[in-house]
């Protein structure tokens, strides 16, 4: 796995030292909050409803066991024993004391981690397909490019004060598991007619209050042009992006206001200027990075034990059917560890659970862990013969839930249980939906269904691209939940449609249940998923289920 260079190490340590002094000066009163706030945000430290929150970057979602153990240590020593994995492949600690944050950052630096550029109007943590380098449908591992982008964008002097935050996602597979179309820049590795590898470049995706699916500005960008091209996009955005209105400052609005043709022309013109300035150092660096991402030494061993176990044990079989994905090596599987036990907080793991996952990665997983934007943890390379042992260990740690991709595998942002911007709670809604469908024993029958919940219009919980999206609002001092249907975050990205008036807190779970029961009634068979059924029949039958009686009124 890639390890930080000496330069990175020195940079991170210097930043920790600077921030340590800044915290001291804030505490002794020499810095006011107005002065300190931008400094703490640059280091991932927010002030939320009940406490501070430290957001730590997990670049392209990749962690080694040592890093995972350090996260456990931090959670236990300076927080309340758990961490929250987020849709942006970060981890958030919800209870740090201001005076402890320098120690936490220093502990992170010990394992090559930090919280730099996890906030503010800069290029944020570059996210990637969590199945990278393991997925059977992948053209190339996207992470070396993500790492190149990380190094290039970290502390980049021109891009520290962009009009607004800037998010890049990258995938190397045909199936888009990185929601690239909802990012400021989405990169998809593709092959051209000549069989060469390059990128399809998407620009201007984003969720928030004005959700937009990104547009393709380049169908094929040769691999070696990545940095000059991304720099050209940022440079055009930096000039054109609106700084007068925070709500119009994202590149999606710039693209919309400038027009795709014009912005593409400007990007290409800037690219023509920049390209000659990249003298090939980036390519030398890329070659080094690639070498560090060499695949693990896969074992060659029989898999019969797995097959036998699969036949014999129904609990294992249920888990294998939902939580395993196809690995490029037939003897291996990709394991998704569900952080969605029914009734628990989506994305939360205790320090003990983090340690169990680290141990499993070390013993059975070639020392690799991934964090997915769906708030689960992945062991990307597990030999099939080891799966029964992995499953047994996960069950013991409360991590064996067989629900990946099902109705209880919900994305939920922290909402009003933690977030100062929230207009309603998100976590308890997720907990109750999961508990309800577990009680109904319908989850496996319903099949693939993505529910995503945000606690305000900022859409951190990706509700716009949920098959069922739930947005929590404050309507005259009462929590109210709006439902969107038919959203999709994959390569066919679609923003969901609003179903109608919102529901009170105690009405939202029954409302979701009505939608799901309506789906079970109208689907053509178990092989027609919720999303396929929605695409076939559209909103009306779901609306009728959501608002019974209203149709009658119309008819009267």
């Amino acid at each position, binding site marked *: 796995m890639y390890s930080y260079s000496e330069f990175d190490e020195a940079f991170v340590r210097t930043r920790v030292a600077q921030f340590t002094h800044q915290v001291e000066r*804030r*505490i*002794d*009163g020499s810095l*006011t*909050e107005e002065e300190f706030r931008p400094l703490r945000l640059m280091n991932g430290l927010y*002030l*939320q*409803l*009940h*406490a*501070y929150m430290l957001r730590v970057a997990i670049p392209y979602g990749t962690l080694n066991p040592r890093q995972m153990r350090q996260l456990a240590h931090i959670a236990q020593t300076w927080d*309340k024993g758990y961490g929250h994995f987020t849709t942006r492949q970060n981890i958030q600690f*919800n*209870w*740090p*004391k*201001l*005076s402890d944050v320098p120690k936490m950052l220093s502990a992170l630096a010990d394992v090559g981690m930090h919280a730099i550029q996890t906030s503010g109007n800069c290029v944020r943590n570059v996210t990637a397909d969590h199945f990278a380098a393991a997925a059977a449908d992948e053209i190339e591992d996207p992470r070396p490019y993500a790492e190149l982008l990380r190094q290039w964008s970290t502390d980049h002097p021109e891009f520290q004060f962009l009009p607004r935050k800037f998010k890049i996602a990258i995938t190397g597979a045909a199936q888009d598991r990185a929601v690239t179309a909802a990012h400021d820049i989405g990169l998809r590795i593709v092959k051209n007619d000549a069989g060469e590898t390059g990128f399809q470049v998407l620009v201007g995706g984003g969720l928030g209050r004005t959700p937009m699916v990104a547009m393709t500005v380049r169908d094929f960008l040769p691999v070696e042009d990545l940095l000059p091209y991304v720099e050209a996009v940022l440079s055009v955005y930096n000039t054109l992006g609106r700084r007068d209105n925070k709500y119009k400052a994202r590149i999606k609005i710039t693209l919309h206001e400038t027009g795709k043709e014009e912005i593409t022309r400007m990007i290409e013109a800037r690219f023509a200027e920049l390209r000659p300035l990249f003298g090939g150092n980036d390519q030398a660096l890329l070659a080094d990075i690639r070498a560090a991402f060499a695949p693990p030494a896969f074992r060659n061993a029989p898999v019969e034990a797995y097959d036998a176990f699969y036949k014999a044990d129904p609990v294992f079989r249920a888990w294998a059917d939902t939580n395993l994905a196809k690995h490029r090596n037939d003897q291996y599987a990709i394991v998704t560890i569900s952080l969605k036990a029914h009734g628990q*907080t989506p994305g*939360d793991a205790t320090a003990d659970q983090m340690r169990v996952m680290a141990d499993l990665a070390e013993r059975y997983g070639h020392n690799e862990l991934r964090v997915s934007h769906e708030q689960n943890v992945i062991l990307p390379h597990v030999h099939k013969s080891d799966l029964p042992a992995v499953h047994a260990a996960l069950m013991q740690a409360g991590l064996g839930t067989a629900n990946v991709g099902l109705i209880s595998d919900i994305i939920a942002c922290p909402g*009003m*249980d*933690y977030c100062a911007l*929230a207009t309603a*709670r998100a*976590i*308890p809604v997720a*907990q109750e939906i999961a508990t309800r469908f577990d009680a109904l024993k319908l989850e496996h029958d319903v099949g693939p269904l993505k529910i995503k919940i945000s606690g305000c219009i900022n859409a951190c919980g990706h509700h716009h691209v949920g098959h069922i999206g739930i947005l929590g609002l*404050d309507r005259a*001092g*009462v*929590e109210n939940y709006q439902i969107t249907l038919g959203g999709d975050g994959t390569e066919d990205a679609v923003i969901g449609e609003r179903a109608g008036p919102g529901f009170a807190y105690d009405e939202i779970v029954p409302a979701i249940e009505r939608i799901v029961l309506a789906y079970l009634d109208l689907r053509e068979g178990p092989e027609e998923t919720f999303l396929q059924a929605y695409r076939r029949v559209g909103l009306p039958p779901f609306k009728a289920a959501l608002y019974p009686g209203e149709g009658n009124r119309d008819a009267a």
Partner: protein
Amino acid sequence: MARFTPKVVTANALIEGDVIYLTADDRWTRLHHEAELIEDEAHAQLRLLHAMAQKSVAVGAYLADAKAGPNGPEPTHFREVFRTRGPSNYFLGKQAELV
């Protein structure tokens, strides 16, 4: 003229980040019902200025709606109710610390 909705001054503590309220005798308390219930707009502004001046204790002071209750001021908006308790997914924060 619209009647003034009573307020309390609230903020987060600088070191812990915990929710705090300004009392009538110029202390900061972690308990909502010990806060000063302010019923006059001009006085509210003065108290807020006083709170904002205490830069080494309180962060992000603001006025939150409240009403009189049997044991002292009570929050009216659900956000402020949550702030008196802590998160609903774990028994942590004030609800755990103040029992």
